[in-house]
């Protein structure tokens, strides 16, 4: 069974996602020892770091903060992936341990995170699609096998993307910006008969570096394993800065500007 990782990277005016993918691929090779396929909108792009580079025209039909955001068409991963067992990772997910290799042993068809932990903000509640809806699953890390059920989930994501306004009405969320997290949350529930079996959930938390929190590398090595997180803790109208230092823990950086600072 061929295992591998697939990354999607479409550059925008503000961020060089391909550069982020180059950072990610080095870490994936080092920690997970897996081949990586890049899906990008740059037809000329070639880089030996990647097992395969696939050109796929960007879907420009999405906006975030009034700017174009190329995050649609993630459902194509099922057909694009050259691997039997695939991990889809966001390029701003920092692989910093071998933990993800365990997913290949434990996943049945498809699995995602639906529980999160924000570093230094332990009491933040989980995100829900809306007050009366499902807990949000995260498309930051998706593991899948090329099975019928996984195909159904990705086909369903396509259907949701194409009818996003309708699903926003059904599930009562704001449709302004398309989110893969919402699409996969709904798709998993539909395919599973509006239940979510435990086998579709990654049995550990997705670690975020979130708001008011910044992450710094402790050295300039692209494979740096130790990071410092500084948190602006508001107490009595004053900021008290707190920090932790950790190693060998994967994390997802929500603030792109902060993530860019980690790049070599």
């Amino acid at each position, binding site marked *: 069974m061929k295992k591998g990782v697939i990354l999607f990277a479409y550059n925008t005016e503000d961020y060089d996602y391909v550069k982020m993918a180059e950072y990610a691929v080095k870490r994936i090779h080092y920690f997970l020892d897996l081949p990586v396929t890049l899906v990008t909108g740059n037809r000329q792009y070639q880089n030996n770091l990647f097992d395969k580079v696939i050109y796929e025209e960007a879907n420009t039909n999405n906006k975030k903060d009034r700017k174009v955001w190329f995050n649609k068409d993630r459902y194509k991963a099922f057909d694009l992936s050259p691997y039997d067992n695939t991990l889809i990772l966001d390029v701003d997910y920092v692989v910093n*341990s071998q*933990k993800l290799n*365990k997913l290949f*042993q*434990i996943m049945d068809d498809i699995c995602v995170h639906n529980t999160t*932990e924000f*570093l*230094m903000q*332990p009491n933040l509640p989980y995100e829900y699609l809306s007050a009366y809806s499902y807990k949000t699953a995260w498309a930051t890390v998706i593991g899948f096998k090329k099975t019928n059920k996984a195909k159904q989930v990705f086909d369903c994501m396509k259907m949701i993307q194409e009818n996003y306004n309708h699903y926003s009405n059904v599930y009562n969320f704001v449709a302004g910006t398309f989110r893969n997290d919402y699409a996969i949350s709904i798709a998993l529930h539909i395919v599973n008969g509006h239940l979510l*079996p*435990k*086998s579709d959930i990654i*049995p*550990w*938390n997705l*670690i975020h570096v979130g708001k008011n929190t910044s992450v*710094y*590398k*402790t050295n300039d090595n692209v494979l740096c394993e130790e990071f*410092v*997180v*500084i*948190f602006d803790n508001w107490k009595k109208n004053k900021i*008290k*800065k*707190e*920090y*932790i*230092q*950790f190693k*060998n*823990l994967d994390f997802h950086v929500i603030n792109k500007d902060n993530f860019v600072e980690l790049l070599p």
Partner: protein
Amino acid sequence: MDTKTLIQEAKARFSHNAAKAALYEKYSSKLIVAEQNGLWKATITLISFLATISDEEVVIIDEFNNLVKVNRQKLHKTLLEIYTNVMNEWYDEFKELENKR
């Protein structure tokens, strides 16, 4: 700017509680293992249960809520080994934290 200087200039205080929480996230997932067609977490409860019964085979509900018939001794040995290794590693890092300021 290196991180030491950064921490000093920001007058940031080391947060023991947040560091403990990060360690929990790091190590609790290491207790999870796939074995004998089931997914298990090496917990004190499960290890003790496997140690106290005498049947060669036993049916247990795994982390995915599936009923799995397992070889008791084999699973017990695997879980105990994982538990011991992870806890020792965790403890070493936990002790390092106590000295941080």
